[in-house]
Each structure stands twice: as C-alpha cells, then as structure tokens.
C-alpha cells in the first residue's frame, strides 16, 4: 500500500497544478456559464480541496479508497463539464482536458504498483466476523480484506454497537480494537467473556505495538489472539481462520455435550425410580460397566414382606390399606436406596431388592445386611404412627441370599424392565417364607460373603424343592459393636 501511495504523490504535483490552472481559467470565465455548470465546478473544486488536504498528510495515513473516490468524483465532474460546455469555452475546455490527463496519470490503480502487496490468500471455511474499530478506514480495510475471501463481515464503530451486533447474530470471531472512545475494547472483551452465550466466541484483540501491557491484560482476560497495528492482511486472514476453526470445534463439542446431557437425563429417568442417585451417577461415569444385554452377576437378593398382611388388610378400608402400604414402602425405599440397593419391584406388600447390580461392589452382602437391620429398626416408628391413626401394628420378615442371577432388560419390546432371573431368586423366596415377624434370615452363602462382623443367631436347615442338598440359613440379630 505504501508503495502505491508513493506513486500517487509523485504524479500528484501535475494534478494539483492542473487544478490551479482550471481554477484560474474558471475565475476568468465563469460569468458566461449556466447555473448547472457553476454548481458542477464548485463541486469539482470541493473535491480538489479535499484532494489537496489529503495529499498534504503523511503518506502512510492516506487511505487509498478515499483517494480513489475523490479522483473518481473530480474526473466525473470534469467529464460532465466537458460535455456541457459550449464550443466557445475553448480555454475552460482545454484546462479540463489537461486536468483529465493529469488525473489519468496520477490515478490510483493506473500504475502497476497497486495491489502488488502480499497476494497470498488464506483459504478458510467462511465465517461470520464482527470487526470492531472506531476508525472507519480500519473497519473498511478489514471488511474488504475478509469479505473478499468469502467471510461475512459486520462492522461496529463502538463497544456498544459491538454488543448489539453480538446480540443480533451468531458471530464466529470478534476482531476487537482496544483503543476506542466510550466503551473500550477491554470492557467489550470482559462482557463477551462473562456472557454465557458469547464466552466461547474467539476474540482477536488489536492494538499498537506500544500497548503490550494492554494486550497481555486482554490475553489474561480471555482474549484468544492478538495483532499489532499495522497488521499484515494475510496474517489477519490466518488468525481469523484459526479463530473460526476454534469456534467450530467448540460448537461441535457443545453439541456433543448436549447429546450426553440428554442421554444422562434419559438414564436418570429410566433408572432413577429403582436405583439410588449414587448408582445412577456411577453408571453414567462408567458407561462401559453397564451392559443391559443381560449378564450373569453375583448379587445379594433381599426379599421383605409384611407378616399376615392379607388377613390384616381384609379388616381395613381400601384407602387405609394404601395409606399404610405407602408409608411402609416409602420408608423402606429410602433405606434401601441409602444402602445403594436396587429395588427390582414391589409385589403388594413385598419388596424385592438386589445389591450388586447393575453395579458390583465388594461390600454388597454387608450393605444388604446393614440395610435389613435398619429396615427392622425403622418399623418401630412406622408402627407408632400407625397406632396413632388407629391402624394395626405390622411386622416384617426379611430374607437375604447371595448367588448368581441373570441381570438385564427383561420383557418384550413393548414393555421391559431391568430385572433378575435365576435359581437364587427362588431360593430367597423360600427363605422368606421361613422368616418370623421382626426377623432377618440370611443364607449361608450371604454369611460367607460378609466382610464385617454381625451378631449371628441360630442356624437351621431348609429343604428347597428342586435341589438335592438343603440350604443352611442363619438369623441376624444385629451389627457387632
């Protein structure tokens, strides 16, 4: 750019002289001119004044685009006047001809030197760029440079305008001048990085070489990149490209995150009623540990029911039965979940829960036994409330058995649930039949699986239909302290 300006100033002397000559000729002959031509002349000279003022500036400050527009305007008026002038106005016509000739040789773009800068163009996915700069020339230069390679560019002349532009569209990269009157670049950056929707939008800050501290401050405040003024346009394109790529990465990541969130919501909704929050979180954290296809697992199975419930309920109103059951099942559910048990189902007054699926832990049996003890302990309070409401006192028996079951989504396509099948389930049910009100019976396999100490009472043998050997069951009296 600077090189081409050099050419302009060299040939501009000729042009300025031609303008002076035209002025003189005009001054001497103007009374013969029609009003329209007078107006054209005054505008032409206005252009001349601007041109002079512009050429008086330092070469580096000259905006080629403005210069080109002034040239174009002067030339337009000169041509127009030449067409309109009488054949008699030879002097003026000659002056205009000389001006046009001078314009032609001084014209930006007439020499080969223009547009001879770095011709490399950085290929990039098109992006939506917001260029913020209080100086019009800078905004236009950037806009031209970036739109030419396919980006969509919006410009803002102030911090306030920039924030409005961000609100209106999904910007990929912000190009931000730091020094602006009013809301400056730092403040715009701060607002962008504080805004939940804009935070991820890459910001490239622009400042003078002397403002190193400002740049550092901005990088610390979250700016993604920087450019020192005056910057190379190819470097700008490269940084913009990098910014767009970063933004696209973020967008994809965000999409992926939202998908995960939806999956997590789905899993929580599906399992939340059966599993404790902790187990659901575990599954979500280690999704590979959960195969719903069905697999063999060693679990501790818990069955609990209210002794003589059927008989009891015959003497109560249906609403009373439901009130009493819900109070009981609600309290038990809380305790089971607190012990990370999986409630498989409620069958009337009976509860079927499993410890060790879908997530196996080393202390599955211990938690199951502690859970059973706590469930029995909680009955006192439940019965207190029952009695206060004139409802019968209830007693429960709990059976625990440890064995291999198949765990998985069981059912048809229309209706399926996470459930368990296997011989160990049947055995648990048989043990449950033996429990007395207030008691806890565990199979020998559960007792063998315990790591902690518990108070163990009498043992008895149990014949189970379908298997040869009998099973030994033990009474649990409490936790050993």
């Amino acid at each position, binding site marked *: 750019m600077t090189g081409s300006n050099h050419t302009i100033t060299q040939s501009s002397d000729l042009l300025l002289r031609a303008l002076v000559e035209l002025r003189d000729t005009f001054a001497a002959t103007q009374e013969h001119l029609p009003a329209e031509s007078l107006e054209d002349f005054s505008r032409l000279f206005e252009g001349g004044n*601007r041109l002079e003022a512009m050429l008086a500036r330092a070469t580096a400050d000259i905006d080629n685009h403005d210069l080109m527009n002034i040239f174009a*305007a002067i030339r337009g008026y000169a041509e127009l006047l030449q067409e309109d002038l009488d054949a008699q106005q030879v002097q003026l016509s000659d002056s205009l001809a000389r001006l046009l000739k001078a314009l032609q040789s001084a014209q930006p773009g007439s020499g080969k030197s223009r547009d001879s800068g770095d011709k490399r163009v950085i290929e990039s996915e098109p992006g939506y760029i917001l260029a913020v700069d209080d100086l019009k020339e800078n905004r236009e230069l950037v*806009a031209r440079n970036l739109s030419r390679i396919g980006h969509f560019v919006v410009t803002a002349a102030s911090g306030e305008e920039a924030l409005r532009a961000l609100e209106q569209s999904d910007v990929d990269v912000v190009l931000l001048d730091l020094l602006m009157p009013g809301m400056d670049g730092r403040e715009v950056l701060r607002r962008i990085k504080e805004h939940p929707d804009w935070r991820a939008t890459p910001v490239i800050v622009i400042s003078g070489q002397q403002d190193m501290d400002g740049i550092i401050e901005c990088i610390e405040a979250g700016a993604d990149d920087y450019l020192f003024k005056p910057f190379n346009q190819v470097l700008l394109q490269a940084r913009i490209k990098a910014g767009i790529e970063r933004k696209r990465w973020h967008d994809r990541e965000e999409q992926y995150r939202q998908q995960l969130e939806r999956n997590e919501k789905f899993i929580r909704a599906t399992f939340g009623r059966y599993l404790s929050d902790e187990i659901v979180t575990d599954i979500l954290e280690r999704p590979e540990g959960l195969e719903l296809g069905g697999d063999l697992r060693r679990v501790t199975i818990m069955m609990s029911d209210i002794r003589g419930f059927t008989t009891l309920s015959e003497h109560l109103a249906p609403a009373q039965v439901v009130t009493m059951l819900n109070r009981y099942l609600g309290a038990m559910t809380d305790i089971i979940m607190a012990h990370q048990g999986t409630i498989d189902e409620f069958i009337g007054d009976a509860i079927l829960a499993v410890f060790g699926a879908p997530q196996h832990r080393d202390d599955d049996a211990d938690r199951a036994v502690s859970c059973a003890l706590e469930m029995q302990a909680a009955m006192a309070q439940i019965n207190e409330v029952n009695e206060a409401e004139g409802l019968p006192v209830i007693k429960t028996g709990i059976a625990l058995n440890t064995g291999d079951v198949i765990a998985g989504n069981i059912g048809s396509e229309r209706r399926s649930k996470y459930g368990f099948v296997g011989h160990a389930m049947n055995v648990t049910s048989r043990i449950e039949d033996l429990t007395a009100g207030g008691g806890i019976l565990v199979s020998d396999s559960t007792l063998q699986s315990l790591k902690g100490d518990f108070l163990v009472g009498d043992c008895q043998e149990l014949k189970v239909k379908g298997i040869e050997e009998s099973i030994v069951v033990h009474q649990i009296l409490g936790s050993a302290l």
Partner: protein
Amino acid sequence: MTNQAPVLLVEDNELNRDMLVRRLNRAGVEVIVAGDGQQALDAMVSEQPRVVLMDMNLPVLDGWTACRRAREDPRISHIPIIALTAHAMESDRLNALQAGCDDYATKPVDFPGLLIKIEKLSRA
C-alpha cells in the same frame, strides 16, 4: 417495455455519490441513494429499484455481503446489481461476480459505458 423504476446508487463517499447522482440525473435517470450495505438492502425491499449500482467498500455491511444477502432474499433476488469496484483490484471484481453481482464497473467509471449497462440490465 423498459422498467422505469429508479436506479439505486449505494455509495458511502458523498463526493462521488453526488457526482454520480448529478450525472445520472442529467442523463435522465432517476436515482435514489443509500450510504451503506444495510440501507441498500432496506431500500431494495421498499423501493424495488430497476438496477442497483453498488460500491463494494461500504460501512456497516460491505457490498459483497449485501450482495450475497440480496441474492438469498426472494423479495429482491431478481434486482440486477452492478458492482462499482476499484480499478486495479482484479480480485474485487471476481469476488463481486461470485457474490452474485450481475456486472461491474471500475472506478472511476466510464460513464457512457455505465449508462449502457444500466439500460441493458433494466431491460433484462
């Protein structure tokens, strides 16, 4: 029959804009003006000009972007656009055509040539 709606001139440099308006008026062409790309799009929608003369280096919304948007907007996508580009910027011209401009004229414009282009596109 030639469409007699006005011609829309989009130019932010008022010196050059006034000159072109005067010359076009003198040649019997009715002209309305816009100073930036956004104004241009608004004017295209409300005034339905027969041809648009658009400078490419515009504030707010540049000419290339305005052009692309105009081509995507069914209300104005049919209006022919002549890009006004800098003389030596070959790339500007190519990009103007790529952005959907129908023709271009380099600045400073060859005025008789510009009039011919306007008439040609008005009839199209």
